């Protein structure tokens, strides 16, 4: 079974803090994705990566950055957290960039106070 794990299920941070969300996949997938999920808006793509050290902006990259130093690990970074970044963050991995076959982690619920 494909497994995508995220470092924290729940996280509470203060405004202005730097926040790291970690994601690890064990299926040797080339592509990894970060989404945020908000009620009524579904999932929106923040960033994705198609190879180590490669990244592309998604639909809502503002206020976020990413890092992929190893194939299995994809990190989402909030340089200076703000209250409007309170959300559920989902990581996914897959073989094809445009494939529906994305495998999702359980999510990290981030609250910024």
């Amino acid at each position: 079974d494909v497994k995508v794990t995220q470092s924290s299920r729940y996280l509470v941070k203060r405004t202005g803090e730097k926040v790291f969300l970690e994601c690890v996949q064990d299926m040797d997938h080339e592509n990894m994705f970060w989404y945020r999920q908000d009620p009524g808006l579904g999932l929106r793509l923040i960033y994705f990566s198609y190879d180590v050290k490669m990244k592309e902006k998604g639909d809502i990259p503002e206020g976020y950055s990413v890092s992929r130093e190893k194939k299995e690990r994809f990190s989402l970074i909030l340089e200076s957290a703000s209250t409007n970044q309170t959300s559920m963050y989902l990581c996914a991995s897959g073989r094809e960039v445009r494939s529906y076959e994305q495998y999702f982690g359980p999510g990290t619920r981030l609250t910024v106070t």
Partner: protein
Amino acid sequence: AQSVTQLDSHVSVSEGTPVLLRCNYSSSYSPSLFWYVQHPNKGLQLLLKYTSAATLVKGINGFEAEFKKSETSFHLTKPSAHMSDAAEYFCVVSGSGGAGNMLTFGGGTRLMVKP
């Protein structure tokens, strides 16, 4: 550009009765369409997919969906709801647009199943 509209944010049914979750899409291309399910505290799971083969698609757990091009719809159905079906369901379209436009998610429909 592509978009997905899930017509109901919440649907409530009784156990044993049919389920209908409605989805309309727009796409400039011949779309691929999917339904994902998210159970509480779990990751999203692919329920079924349409990729230009048969218009009636069968998925896991007895769900199916019919692609209707003339109506730009891809509604999800199940003949008889089970308590374990309570979850949030997302209709998704896959486009061939720019890099940031791969999977477009609808807003989600929360399905509640009453005993």
